[in-house]
Each structure stands twice: as structure tokens, then as C-alpha cells.
């Protein structure tokens, strides 16, 4: 029963402090605070990497920054295809955020992606971007018409897709992060000293980064489909 209580405790996101704006009370959750930490790390890193840029005689720091940028843009741009390249900035940001928040559990913080609200927000943002890209590319009329393609009878399924896609996106991310966490906790109980450390490389590092990749991959696939 000890484990069940621990699980419930991990599932519940605690309120860290409450903001008072006039008479309204805004509870600030743990996941929000950890998100601020992730944001802080990313902002500091990008400010550090992009100060003192030069066109000639580049420093090692700038070479590193250029390498990261080139790799990420070519990866996400390749997934998006030629027509939807302008959305790669958002997707790279999401990739970095999810990737970092999945592996921030390693240094003792509670991953924000283990909170269902965070993954729901990410999935809703994704579906808004997908449908927005479709409207931007085709205009409202053609976008509505695209629901009846390829044959008119699939229209209900296409409309259902708008709701099932974000649901499956958020559940996949949440379930994977939580699943990896639960398995790690069980391993820590069953064989404490060395073995959890080995499995942690797979479950925390590899799986966390893979899920960030999968999330971005699926979103880019949907965008690609929407702008076609």
C-alpha cells in the first residue's frame, strides 16, 4: 500500500503558492514552477550561446550554437517538408521544452510532463496550430471542404480526428512519462543498488527524448497533411 500512496502523491500536483491578484486567487502548481526552471535553463543557455556572434573567425561557442541550430532545423524542417517550413520554430521550441522537462527528473525535480494538464495544454496548442495552418494555407472555405475528402462519407471521422488527435498526443506523452516513472520506482524497490541506474539511462534519458521526438514528429505530420 506504500507504493499506491506514493503513486497518488506523485499523480497529484501540489500547489506551491497562491497568487493574489485583487480578490482573485490563482493557485500556482508545482509543474508551473518547474516549467519556469526549464524556461530559465533554456533562456540562459540560448543567451549564453548567442552572445558575441561574428561572421568571421568564429569561436568554439558559436560553432556549437550553429551546429545545434543546423541539426535541429534540418531535422524538423525535413519532417515538415518544403511547404510548411515556417512552423519549424515553434516545433523546435516544443521539442526542446518537452525533451528538457522529461529529463529534468534526473536532477530531482518533478517532470512537468507528468502533470496531465501540461500535456493537455501542449496537445491543444498543437491541434490549434495544425488547424490554423490549414486555414492559413487554404482559406476557410477550402479548409472546411477538406473535411469531406477523400469521399463524403468519411466526414464524421475527419471531424472526430480533430478531437482524437490531441487526446492521443497528450495521453501518449503523459502515459509514457508516468509509465517510465512507475517502472523506475518499482525497480528501485526490487533491486536497490546498481541496476536502476542502468535502466535509468533507457527509461529517463532515451525514452524521454524519444517521446519529445515522437510528439514533434506527429505534430509535424499533421501540419504537413493539413497544408497539402
Amino acid at each position, binding site marked *: 500500500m506504500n507504493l*499506491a500512496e506514493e*503513486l497518488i502523491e506523485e*499523480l497529484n500536483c501540489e500547489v506551491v503558492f497562491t497568487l493574489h491578484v485583487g480578490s482573485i486567487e490563482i493557485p500556482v502548481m508545482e509543474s508551473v514552477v518547474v516549467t519556469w526552471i526549464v524556461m530559465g535553463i533554456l533562456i540562459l543557455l540560448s543567451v549564453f550561446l548567442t552572445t558575441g556572434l561574428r561572421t568571421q573567425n568564429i569561436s568554439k561557442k558559436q560553432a556549437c550554437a550553429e551546429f545545434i541550430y543546423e541539426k535541429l532545423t534540418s531535422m524538423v524542417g525535413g519532417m515538415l517538408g518544403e511547404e510548411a517550413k515556417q512552423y519549424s520554430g515553434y516545433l523546435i521550441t516544443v521539442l526542446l521544452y518537452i525533451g528538457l522537462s522529461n529529463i529534468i527528473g534526473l536532477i530531482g525535480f518533478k517532470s512537468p510532463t507528468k502533470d496531465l494538464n501540461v500535456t493537455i495544454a501542449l496537445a491543444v496548442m498543437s491541434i490549434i496550430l495544425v488547424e490554423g495552418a490549414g486555414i492559413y494555407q487554404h482559406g476557410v472555405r477550402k479548409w472546411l471542404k477538406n473535411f469531406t475528402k477523400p469521399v463524403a462519407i468519411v466526414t464524421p471521422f475527419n471531424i472526430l480526428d480533430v478531437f482524437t488527435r490531441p487526446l492521443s498526443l497528450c*495521453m501518449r506523452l503523459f*502515459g*509514457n512519462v508516468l*509509465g517510465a516513472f*512507475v517502472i523506475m520506482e518499482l525497480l528501485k524497490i526490487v533491486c536497490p543498488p546498481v541496476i536502476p541506474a542502468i535502466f535509468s539511462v533507457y527509461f529517463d534519458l532515451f525514452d524521454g527524448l524519444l517521446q519529445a521526438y*515522437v510528439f514533434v514528429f506527429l505534430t509535424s505530420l499533421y501540419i504537413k497533411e493539413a497544408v497539402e
Partner: protein
Amino acid sequence: MNTLIAIGAGIAVVTGIGAGIGIGIATGKACEGIARQPEAEGKIQKNLILGCALAEATAIYGFVIALMIIVMLQ
């Protein structure tokens, strides 16, 4: 009551069978494809990861449901 909850959670996790079979078939076919055309490895790998993620999702849904059964019904 606790036994029933445990049995229900166990049944929910049976969804893992489908994901296992699906990922197994996908990986097998990917290996065949790479053996036949080694130069297409990159593309096959990309699609394999996507397919595995989609197939894996069913197992994850089962896991989430099982966890919810345990946590909510207690």
C-alpha cells in the same frame, strides 16, 4: 473489493499484447526492408519509429486506464 480492483487493472494491461505483436511485426518488416535495400535505412528507421510510437500508444492507454482504476477506485 481490492482483489477485484487488482483483477480489473490486470485485465486493462492485457492491451500490451497488441502493442507487442504490432511492434514485433513492424520491426521484422523493417529488418527485411533494410536487408533488401540497405540504402533506404534512414527512411525506414524514421517510419519505424513513428509506427512503433503509434502501436505503443495502445499499450500506454491500457496502462493509464489500469493506473486510473487503481487510483480512482481506492
